[in-house]
Structure formats: C-alpha cells, structure tokens
C-alpha cells in the first residue's frame, strides 16, 4: 500500500517521462524474450489429477436437491417463503462445501488437480482401434480455476437467493417456487459447466444455464416483451452453441477425447510447434478448434456480434439479471477460454480475434450505455463492455487479469444490479434516470445509496478499488503484449475506461444524489403486480399517493455484504504477490496458465516479476525497474513498456486520470449542471454532437441492421421453403402415408377372425418359406 504515497508525483513523472522515452516503446515490444524463460510446458505446470473425495460431487448435487424440494413446493402449492429458504439453505451448504473443496485443494500443494467421478456416463466403442471409443464420465475436474469460479458462483448464488426471497415476495404462492426451482437449476448447471471434467459435462452445463436463463428471462411470461427477450436470448445463444458444439466434435475427432486431463498432453506438441515458429505446420482442423470454441464463448458472454440478447434479457426479474446476466453465466465464455487456454495457443489467429472482438465490444457497448436512460439497461451494456475487457485480458496473455476482473466484476456488478433492483422494486418499476433523483437521501435508502456508490466506484475504476486493479492488469498487458494491433486495443480499452466512468456516475449522480424527486413507474411493473399473469389492478398507482417502499432487511443485508465484498475483493490483489494476487495464483496453478505462451504473441514476462516487486516495495520497485531496464537483464526489454514506464505502474496513473476525468465529467454535467430531475447540462451539449447521441441511444441501429440483414431475408426464405414444403415434401409425405395404408388395407382381409383362415396363412407361409429355402440351397 506504499504506492498510495507517491501516486501523484509519479503520475506527473510518468506523463513527462513518456514524452522522452516514447521511442523505446515499440522497440521493447519487438524484442523476444529468451525461450527458456517461458518454456514451461503447459503439461508441466499442471500435475496429473488424482481422485478426489466423493463429497465434492455434493456441490452440484445440493442445488439439484433444491430443484426437487422447490418442485415439491410447487406441487403442494406452498404459500410461504419456504422455497426461498430451502434454496438459500441448499446453496449456502454448497458454498460451504466449495470452501472446503478449496481448502482440500490448497492442502495438496500448488498445481494439484482433483478428479471426482460421479458415474460413468458415455462409453461407446465401435471397434477395437485407437480413437474408436468415446468415453465421457460424469466427472468433476477441480483445480484452482474451478475453485475460483465456484466460490463466487455459489457464494453470490446464496446471497442473491436471499435477496430474491424479499424481492419476489409478491409472487409467493404463484411463481415463487417456479422462480427458485429455475434458480437452483441454474446453479446446478453452472456447477456442471465449471466443474465438468470434460467438454461434454461442460456442454451439459452450458445448455443448462442457457435453458435456465431462458426460463428466468421469460419468468413474467404474460408480458410479451419478456417472452420476446427470452426467445431472443435463446436463439442468439444457439448460434454460439453451434460453434461450441462443432468445436467439441472437432476436438474429439482430432484428439480422440474430450476429457481435460487427457487433452492437455495431446495439445502440447502443437503448442511447441507454434512456439518454435512453425505455426503453419499445425493442421487447419486443429487450429480451427479454438475459433469454434470462441464462437460459443461470444454467444454466451454477449460479445460482438452476438451481444444483442443481453440488454433485452433485463426483462427478467432483477436478481436474475444480477446473478445470471451479470455475475456468473455471462462469464462462462471467459471460463471456457481460460479452461481451454492451451487450445487457444495452437492458433495464431484465435487470441487476436478474441482481443479485437473484446475491445470493439467494450467500446461499442460503452457508447450505447452512455446514451441510455433505463438504468438497468445501462448496467446491462456495462456488463457487455466489461466482458469485452475480460476477453481482451485473455487475448493479451493476461488470463490472470481476465479472471481477476471476472472475480471483482461479479461482486460489484451484482451490487449495482441489486441496487437498481431495489430502486425498481421501491418505485413501482421506475427505471428511467430522468424520473428519479436523490434516492440515496430518502428515508431507508441509505444502504442502497452507499452500496451503489461502492459499485460505481469499482466499475468506474476509481483508484484503489478492486475494479481499478483488475482493469489495470488487463490494460497494462494489452500495451506490453505484442500482437496484431495490440497497442490499438490498449488505447481502445483506455478510452472505454473513461466512457465507463462517465456513464456509471451519470447514473449515480442523477438517480442517487441531487434533489429528491421521483415519478413512480407509470406502468406498474409486473413483478410488483400480479406475477404478470393476473389483471393489472394497479394497486398503488397514482403518483400523488405513491410512497416508495424502502428495501427491507434481506435486501439491505445482501447489499451490505456485497458492497463490503466489492471493497474487500481488492485485497485479493495484495496477497500472493509473486503471482499477481490471489486470483493470479489460482490461475497460474490451473490450465489457464499462459506459460506455454506461443511465439506469435511476445509477452513481457519480465514485467510481471518486476511489477510484483513494484507492488510490494512501492517506490523502490519503480526505481529497480528503471535500473533493470537499463542494465539489460537478459533482454533489455524482456517486457514491453507503456509510455516508457513499467506498464502496470504507468497504468495506475493513466487509468486513474482517465477514470477521474470520466467521473469529473459526469459530476460536472449531471450533478453541478442539474436543473431538474429530468434535465441537466448534458442535454444542452447534445445538439453539438449532431446525430451521434441519437444513434447511440438507438444502440447504433444494430438490432435494426440484424433485422434487415438476417431476419427479413430468413423470413422470406422461410416462406419460399414453406411453399416448397407444402407442394413437394408434403406430397411425398402424404404418399408415404397413403402407401402403407393402401398395403395395409389390401392385407387386412387376411385377418378375418376365422381360425382356419389363420391356419391356412401360417401353413401356406411355411410352405412358401421352405420352398424358397430349398430353391436357394440348390
């Protein structure tokens, strides 16, 4: 924490220093690191798995128990909050076991992996030869990456279930059990996805979370928008799933297995091939695998061009948005790439594509987020944007940064969503930031306001928040890793960081501070009404009589815990320093370790070691770095640099400045410049920007574009096919239906019910058969 003391002087130094040393930056990136520095084989980094204790299988099983119990609640029409408490109980127990699993794994020493086989699932062979056998057990693969994901999946799941117990209270006895059933099923599926020992279990979980997402987005199934959104999410995800599925098929075809521990050694030769500069020797079919897997990841994690479903998914109940569409499910794509990281190193193109898609998504979503008025949608776009960051992190060989960002993002984004949910809940579904103001100062809304502030600071990357550290890790790496246009990616991400800070605090300044004013939701939101299936009776409508109801104990408790967790998450950066934080250690000991990095992406490995020192020793580290750089130490610029400085260090300053500028802009335009709840100085600026704000508000017309380019042509094609189907195919099918009927009606008279007729048939048939056999034998 000594860095605190010199942040301001160093900031100045870095800006001035950069002008001098600018020329070095490019050169530094080009010089390759000595091969021996990074020549850990992937397979060396991970010890072969050992069989683990069976209780680990209880982690996914407890949510299934929850599914059964809540289903029973639904069958017996329980009219209390029992399903919620059963869910919280099951998930909390699952979380406890996850902690125990982490302890168990830690006790086994670094790099350990554990495999727990629940039962044999598939075992097919179609010959004795090699590769003529398909085996996939229902087994769980536990390494540190698994633990990381499971800790926040079950932990957040428990908290959000608790929150939902109050949030969904209006639905008690109606959709309550159904909600929690799907909730439990989601956690089970997510556990399968994360803990699966092979790609098939992962796929099961992948589809399971997709299904639960569909069910929960469409929870208010009487509301057309919710149904539309659910369908959209489902269909868009299918496109991604196709990619994933093809990737899994191809993996099996090329490697003969889908099990991770068996896969890593088989992938290794190809990585070596790429490393030694013979990337062209890798068969196309192998280098195609990561591209296909990537398509799956883009679908699930809402990246270009498949991100369009996520903002619409906000039609679901807010706890669902928080858990599934912000914290956990959407990070499945990141998990997939992190888990299959060795596979992504066999293709020259896979990681750069991931990086560019991520960066463009981050920027695009941020610009859209700036122009929206629905606070939940703003959060949705910010999720898309932050996911873009995570993908960039993976692409620039900073799987640590990506995983750390997933981790911190899970907490602060859940906090933000739950705050928005509390507002929505309290103000009858009002989500328009022009119609709410000063919420934090209203009676009973203090905790919500504070939690929101914590979340916003994190998202904006305010210095020394968890979000700040995790974002910086990605930013820094994107400047030091040499790859196609990676420098540009860094700049895009930096700009996006500023935009993020702006739109985040735009929400905060407009909704949570400022003059107290509000309009309740004019259309009473369904989760406030009647589960969406009853008549909307508008119980407490009428703006004059409306009293916002402040959140109750469960909501405040959960928000408090989450806000605290968001702050504390930053602490993870300061333990296990030699591995860039706790998350870094977890990542390094798993398959997401990048030490098998490929030659095509030259990575400033030295920077890491130095940066670790810098974090610990503060100023001294910076000095050391400078000296080391001067002394050459193996390769003078074994690491890249940014603006002539150690990139991580520089990034602290630069991104702090960028973040503060964004916050400052928001402060100036939306706090100081506020005239009424609905208007602020920002509105005066709009004409100056021409049509851009309007385009951004209309999400750059992407939906309209997809509609025109994909949906409409498909619809036309569908009509054409329908016509062909009617005329041609139905004709054939009808014929196929008529022919057997005709034959049947011809031979039916034989079944005349007379025993003698039957005997004649039997004996005649026998005679014919004998005659035929005798003829054939002759």
């Amino acid at each position, binding site marked *: 924490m000594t860095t605190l003391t010199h942040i301001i002087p160093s900031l100045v130094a870095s800006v001035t220093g950069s002008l001098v040393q600018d020329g070095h930056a490019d050169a530094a990136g080009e010089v390759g690191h000595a091969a021996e520095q990074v020549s850990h084989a992937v397979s060396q980094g991970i010890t072969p798995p050992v069989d683990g204790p069976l209780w680990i299988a209880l982690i996914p099983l407890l949510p299934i128990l929850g599914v059964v119990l809540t289903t029973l609640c639904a069958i017996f029409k329980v009219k209390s909050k029992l399903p919620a408490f059963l869910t919280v109980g099951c998930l909390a127990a699952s979380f406890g076991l996850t902690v125990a699993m982490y302890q168990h794994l830690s006790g086994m020493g670094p790099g350990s992996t554990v495999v727990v086989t629940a039962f*044999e699932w598939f075992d097919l062979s179609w010959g*004795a030869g090699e590769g003529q056998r398909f085996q996939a057990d229902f087994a769980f693969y536990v390494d540190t990456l698994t633990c990381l994901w499971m800790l926040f999946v079950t932990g957040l799941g428990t908290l959000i279930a608790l929150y939902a117990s109050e949030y969904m209270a209006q639905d008690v006895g109606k959709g309550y059990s159904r909600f929690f059933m799907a909730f439990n099923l989601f956690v089970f599926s997510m556990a399968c996805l994360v803990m699966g020992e092979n790609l098939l279990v992962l796929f099961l979980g992948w589809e399971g979370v997709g299904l639960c997402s569909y069910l929960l987005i469409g929870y208010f199934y009487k509301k057309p928008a919710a149904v539309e959104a659910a369908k959209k999410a489902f269909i868009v995800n299918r496109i991604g799933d196709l990619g994933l599925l093809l990737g899994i098929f191809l993996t099996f075809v090329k490697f003969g297995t889908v099990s991770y521990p068996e896969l890593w050694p088989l992938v290794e030769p190809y990585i070596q091939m790429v490393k030694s500069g013979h990337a062209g020797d890798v068969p196309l079919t192998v280098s195609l695998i990561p591209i296909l897997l990537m398509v799956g990841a883009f679908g699930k994690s809402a990246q270009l061009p498949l991100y369009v479903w996520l903002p619409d998914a906000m039609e679901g109940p807010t706890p669902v948005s928080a858990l599934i569409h912000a914290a956990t499910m959407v990070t499945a794509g990141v998990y997939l790439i992190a888990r299959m990281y060795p596979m992504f190193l066999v293709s020259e193109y896979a990681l750069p594509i991931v990086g560019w898609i991520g960066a463009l998504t981050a920027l695009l979503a941020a610009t859209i987020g700036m122009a929206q008025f629905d606070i939940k949608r703003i959060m949705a776009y910010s999720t898309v944007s932050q996911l873009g960051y995570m993908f960039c992190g993976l692409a620039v060989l900073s799987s640590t940064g990506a995983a750390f960002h997933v981790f911190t993002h899970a907490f602060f984004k859940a906090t933000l969503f739950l705050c928005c949910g509390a507002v929505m809940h309290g103000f009858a579904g009002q989500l328009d930031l022009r119609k709410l103001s000063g919420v934090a100062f209203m009676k009973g809304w203090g905790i919500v306001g504070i939690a929101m502030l914590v979340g916003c600071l994190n998202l904006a990357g305010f210095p020394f928040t968890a979000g700040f550290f995790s974002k910086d890790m990605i930013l820094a790496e994107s400047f030091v890793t040499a790859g196609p246009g990676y420098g540009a990616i860094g700049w895009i991400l930096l700009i996006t960081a500023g935009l993020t800070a702006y739109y985040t605090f735009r929400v905060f300044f407009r909704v949570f501070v400022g003059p107290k004013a509000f309009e309740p939701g004019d259309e009473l939101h369904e989760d406030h009404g009647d589960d969406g299936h009853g008549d909307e009776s508008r119980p407490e409508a009428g703006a004059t009589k409306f009293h916002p109801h402040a959140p109750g104990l469960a909501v405040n408790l959960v928000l408090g815990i989450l806000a605290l967790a968001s702050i504390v998450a930053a602490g993870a950066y300061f333990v296990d320093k030699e591995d860039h934080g706790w998350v870094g250690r977890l990542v390094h000991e798993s398959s997401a370790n990048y030490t098998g990095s490929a030659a095509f992406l030259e990575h400033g490995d030295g920077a890491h070691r130095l940066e670790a020192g810098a974090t610990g020793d503060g100023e001294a580290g910076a000095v050391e770095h400078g000296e080391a750089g001067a002394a050459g130490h193996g390769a003078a610029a074994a690491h890249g640099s940014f603006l002539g400085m150690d990139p991580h260090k520089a990034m602290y300053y630069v991104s702090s400045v960028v973040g503060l500028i964004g916050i400052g802009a928001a402060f100036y335009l939306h706090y100081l410049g506020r005239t009424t709840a609905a208007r602020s100085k920002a509105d005066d600026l709009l004409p100056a920007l021409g049509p851009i704000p309007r385009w951004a508000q209309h999400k750059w017309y992407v939906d309209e574009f997809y509609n025109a380019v994909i949906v409409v042509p498909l619809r036309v094609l569908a009509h054409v096919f329908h016509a062909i189907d009617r005329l041609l195919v139905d004709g054939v099918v009808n014929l*196929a239906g008529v022919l*057997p009927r005709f*034959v*049947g009606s011809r031979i039916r008279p034989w*079944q005349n019910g007379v025993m003698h007729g*039957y005997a004649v048939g039997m004996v005649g048939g026998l005679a014919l058969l004998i005659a035929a056999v005798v003829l*054939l034998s002759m």
Partner: protein
Amino acid sequence: MIERIGYLWPEIVLFIGACLTMVIGLSPNADMRKQTGLIAGVSLLIAAALGLATPAAPTWAILPGIMPFAKPLIALVGLLLLLVNIGSVDRDEEAAIAAGKPFNPLRVTGAEFYAFFLFSLMGAMLCATAGDLIWLFLALELTSLPTYVMVVLSGRGKKGFDRSQEAGVKYFFLGALGAGIFLYGFALLYGGTGTTQFVEIAQHFAAHGMNPIATVGLVLALVGVSFKIAAVPMHFYTADVYQGSSGGVAAFLAFVPKTAGMISILLLVSTVGWAAGQGSLPPAIESLLWALAVLTMTVGNVLALLQSSLKRMLAYSSIAHSGYMLVGVIAGPGDGSFVSSGIAAVLFYLLCYGVMSTGVFAVLASLERKSGGEAVEVESLDDIKGLCRSHPWLGWSMVICMLSLLGFPPILGFFGKVPLFTSALGAGHVVLVVILALNSAIAAFYYLRVVAGVMIDPESDSGVRDTGVPARVIAAVISGVLVLGLSVFGNVFMGSGEKAAEVRRFVGQSDEHDTDSVPLDEHSEAAEDEHHAVSH
C-alpha cells in the same frame, strides 16, 4: 447333469413360489388368499437376485453369457407384469365373497392365475438355460401352456369373458399348430446332426457343413418358434388374442413368450451361424430370416396403421418390434462390441421393449369405462383422449412409453434401436437397415396419433375412470420412470448385454475331434465327454 442345478436356482424359486400360491390360494380365509400376489412378487424378486448371480460360461451353453442377463430381465419385467395383473382375475368373485357369498374353492381362480404366471416366466427362463433341443422344447411348452389358460381366465364381465374365450381358442389351437411345426423341426435337426446338444450340433456343422435334413429341420424350427415372437407368417393370432385378453395378460403375451421365442431363435441360429465357424449365417438361413424380418415389420406396421382399437394396434406394433429384433439376429455377433453385436442389440431391445410395452398396457389396464351396465376395459383411442389432463400420471406414462416405442430420441426405445441399426450396418445389410428405417417412419404415424390424442385433444366424455387397483397405476408410472431412467443409465445394461451376447465359435472342418471352442478349450472336451456319456 446334476451340476446344472447350479444354474437353475431362479427357476427353482419360481417353482416353489408357484406351488405355494396354488396351495395358499385355496385357503377359505380371504386374507390368506390375498397373500398370493405377495408371494409371487417375493419369489420373483429372489429369482431376479439369484439370476444375477448365475455363473456364466457353462460348458454346455451355446451362448454362455446369456443367463445372467436374461433371467433377471425376465424376473424384473415379470415383477412389473405382476403389478399390472394384480386383481385382474377373481376381482368380482372376491368382492362377492366379501359381500357374503359362500367360499367355493372351484370358483376361485386367482391363485391359479399367479401360479400359471410364475410357471410361464419359469419357462422363459428355462429357455435361456437350454443346452439341448429337448430342454428347449419343454421350456417353450412350459412358457406357452400356462398363457393359454391365462388368456381364458383374464376376461372380466360377460362380454369380456366371451372375448377371452375366443382369444383362448384361437391362441391355443394355432399355438398347438406352431408347436407341432417346431417340434418336427427339432426332430429333423436331431436326425440331421445326430445329437440334441446345441454345442454338438454346432460342432457337427463346423465339421461337416449343413445337410438337407438339418436345413429343413432348422427352417421348420425357426418358423415354428416365430409363433412365440409373433413373426409373419405365424402372426395371425396376435391381434385377436391381445384384444380378447385383459390389458395385463396382453402385456404378458407381448413380453414373455416373445422373450422365450427370441432367446430360442438366438440359440438355434447360433448353432448354425457364428458358432459353426462362419462369420455369418448360411445363405439359405440368412435369406429366410431376412424375409421373416422384412415381412414381419412391414406387415405389423401397415396393419397397425389401420387399427382403431388400441390393443389391436399394440398387437401389430408388437409384431413390428419382433421384426426389428430379427434384424439384430441377422446381423450376428459382429466383433463382440456392443455396437456391432446384433445379439447384444436383441437382448438390450428385449429389455427396452419389455419396459415400454408393459407401460403402455399398464395404462390401458388401469382404465375402464361403463358399457351396458358393466365395467369394460378401455379400447379405442377416443377413450383415452386428453388423458394427460384427466389422469396426468397415466397420461404422461403413456406419452413417454409411446414415444419410446416409436424410437423417439433421446428416449429408451431410440437407444434400443440404434444398436440394431449399427450392428446391421456393420454386417453389411444396408437394404435391411433402409427397410428398418422406413418402417420406423411408418410407425410414427400411429404412435404419434396416440401421443397427440393423449396430450393435446380435449378430454373424452366416455366416462373413463380409474379401475381402482393402485398397483396398475404404479406399474404404469414405474414403467414411465424406468423408460426415462434407462434412457440415461441404460449404458449399464448395454455393458451386461454385451457380455451376455458372447458367442462360442467352433472352428475346424475335418473332424469332430479337432473342433475347438475359441473362448475356452476345455469346453469342447467336456462336451465330448457328455456326448459319450449320452451315447453309452
């Protein structure tokens, strides 16, 4: 011979159970009489457990692994069938006795029904134990004779009894004709080879090839036994008999004789086919089975299309399923792995078919409606329309089992059918596979009609109600659950099916003494010893 007792414990238990039910069933005490079903159930459970423990690979068996698979299968599906059949006989008589009618041992037939039930299952198990023609003949007759009585006994009410009698007479007389045919076939097979032991018959064929007498004998035997599996041209009785029997007995007929017949066909075909050293069947026998398979599935399906009575439809569908299984017989053992072994496919399909057809019949047996003052079983599709709404448990069981019968992926029947396809493809029978696929498509028409009727159509107004025997509903639900469960966990049984389908091959063309059994050498020697023991 005495050491064979060790393989017979399941049958012995069933025999004891059958004797017990017969004695206890004549007790004047109604509570005692009620215990007969329980006794039957317990003996089936014990038999299943003992069957699982049956040692494999005896020297005298042509399919050494079949017993540990077939016996538990028969006992466990038998348990399900027992649930369907509880209270199907004697219900009115017992009610009358409870209401004060004096007890007359001559009028009470429930216990006899259970005894026959157990005897027939025992016969089916004995088919799996059979090592020679005499044994097989006795086992087949033991399977069939009780079913004739069961069919006649199963009718309820005046109209029902009329029908069950008609079913009984057709079944018995045509069955006797079929028995005469396969018995004559057995006699010729014995004459042509000089032995009744399957192992020796196989060795004879391996050493000397086929001869005309044995060929004709085999054809007669196969065609005669196809009466049990209701294959064309011996299928004529099927629809009438199923329609005339109660739902439970029809379920019994669809599984037990079919299993006994299928196992017998596997044993008979093994002697001449792969066991005799060739990879495949002799062309004449293969053509015979080919014709039987194609005719059976096609006739079954096209006639099922036209039925309005559900029981008749299911009867024809049962014919079609026998045709599917014959495809597996033609495919042969392949290289022994599950996907290439037609024998394993047939055995696994028997399991699938047993569960799903029992489920469908159990649903029918669970429902009745008033007609002319007495309760009759539901018969037409109209009766069970909207069942998912009026009786959700039964309705959904029906849907699941029907989809499974159709082979709808990813439900059990689909996994049953896939190995049939793969094994036949592996053996190079592409045309047969195409015909099998076409037939599956035709079958979709009538299965989906039922599924749609049960799921979508409005409830029927014909006053259909539950029969009030919970065991039948339980059987239906268990079947539905089993179909779903086995869809997921069926791989366990695939493994044991693969083991059960292990075949023995006797190579060597010159002399009987050179014959050699591939799995275990001492087998053929032991068989030789037995041979001498019989001849002297």
